């Protein structure tokens, strides 16, 4: 057998394995939803609480056609994306400031620890009173929940950059800003991307909790409303939509990752 046929066999095996993975993934998906549907039809589970895929689907269709769902979804999505971006950018900026001034970072260290340990959603009521019950306070919730942990993780990455890279720049007479731009920031891209992935989930938490509290618009509002009128079709529909949107956001971050660090080792 020559190398060519061996290589083809190897590639064929790869394709086969990939198909098998996809097959089982699809199988789990189908089994879950059909099991749910069947259990609901035969009343093995309480229809009132657990609903069923077909009911959720028909509710989805009506809510789409009367336009309310798109309205709520777009509000929540905008809040989440903004909260996510602001939280990550602000966290990275704070990390850069801490890196810039080691003295400041030593001064602020215990405060960062306290802020990080504090449950940020507990700030919700204060935010809503201070900023008004609406868009601004919900975005702030989405951002505040991720900003401190981003600061801590990214700052640690900035500090962990191999000092020899900094030495190379120092021998070229680079100033602190140039050192940051040429070595510290690009060397920390992988860490920044992984905090982005964490922040996707965190900002959804912040925004949904914010909408619970404000209770006027958005998917979080739909969940509390469904809960209050005991319409669990609505609760589960909102949950499904959140799951899909969060997954899409995660995938977008992965695309960004591929674009940003394709040159890395």
């Amino acid at each position, binding site marked *: 057998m020559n190398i060519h046929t061996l290589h083809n066999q190897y590639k064929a095996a790869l394709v086969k394995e990939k198909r098998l993975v996809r097959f089982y993934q699809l199988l789990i998906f189908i089994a879950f939803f059909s099991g749910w549907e069947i259990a609901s039809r035969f009343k093995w589970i309480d229809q009132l609480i657990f609903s069923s895929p077909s009911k959720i689907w028909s509710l989805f269709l009506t809510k789409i056609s009367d336009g309310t769902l798109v309205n709520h979804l777009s509000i929540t999505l905008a809040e989440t994306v903004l909260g996510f971006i602001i939280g990550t950018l602000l966290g990275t900026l704070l990390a850069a400031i801490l890196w810039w001034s080691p003295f400041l970072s030593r001064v602020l260290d215990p405060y960062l620890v306290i802020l990080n340990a504090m449950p940020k959603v507990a700030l919700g009521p204060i935010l809503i009173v201070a900023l008004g019950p609406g868009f601004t306070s919900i975005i702030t919730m989405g951002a505040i929940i991720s900003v401190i942990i981003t600061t801590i993780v990214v700052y640690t990455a900035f500090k962990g950059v*191999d000092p*020899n*890279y900094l*030495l*190379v*720049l*120092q*021998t*070229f*007479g*680079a100033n602190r800003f*140039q050192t940051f731009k*040429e*070595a510290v920031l*690009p*060397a920390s*891209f992988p860490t920044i991307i992984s905090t982005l992935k964490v922040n996707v989930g965190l900002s959804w938490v912040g925004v949904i909790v914010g909408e619970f509290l404000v209770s006027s618009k958005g998917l979080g509002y739909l969940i509390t409303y469904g809960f209050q009128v005991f319409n669990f079709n609505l609760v589960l529909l909102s949950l499904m939509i959140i799951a899909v949107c969060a997954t899409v956001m995660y995938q977008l971050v992965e695309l960004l990752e591929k674009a940003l*660090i394709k*040159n*890395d*080792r």
Partner: protein
Amino acid sequence: MNFLTINHVDHTYFSKQTATPALQNINLSIEKGEFISFLGPSGCGKTTLLSIIAGLFPPTAGTVLLEGQPVLSRDELSIGYMLQQDYLFPWKTIGQNITLGLKLLKHDKEASLSTAMKLLQDVGLPGVEHQYPRELSGGMRQRAALARTLAVDPKILLLDEPFSALDYQTKLKLEDLVSETLKAYGKTAVLVTHDIGESIAMSDRIYLFAAHPGRIHKVFEVPNELRLLTPFQARNHPSYSSLFQTIWKELESLEHSYTA
């Protein structure tokens, strides 16, 4: 006037628990175009001295003058520093890596690029400017690092064990390349090494250091007939082995004086 003068340099590292004397009373001077080696056991302060010459930090006492001016107060870039590993930036292409120094000095982009191409040619790496460091072998990367160091046209090159991470054959080839390139550009250089053979083959003068605290133990002049040869040819010359023996014995006696 000497090109580089080191006067009564002492250096001590301080930490909360200890003060480590790393260098004691170092005096030496280097002429323009000379190639000098610092040879000695681990921990004898070679890297410390090189960093002080580079002006990375001030010595605890003493002065370092380059062309009569203290290195720390010079504002033009005059030092090229090469490390044991290449430390090419993995997210930059070879071309971007080599022009990095010029970019920081705000040189014209086009001119920098043509400098980079010429240097890549000189170090035997034509046509790799669009590749990334990970696509190159260890030896090629160290050549690229040499090109990056030379790109800013430094007055003096400081080489801290630049060949020690390479395999033997690559190391021999690179010694020749560095030696010839530096001669062609008329550069002054200081090489730090653990390798007696390398110091003889490459340099004009060898400073043998002793440790605890780091100080100059002895100075060896490399005979003229070896200086004229390439490092590879020098290694096969009869005077090479006699000098090797002399330095070897000296190093041995240093070690004995510790254990005794």
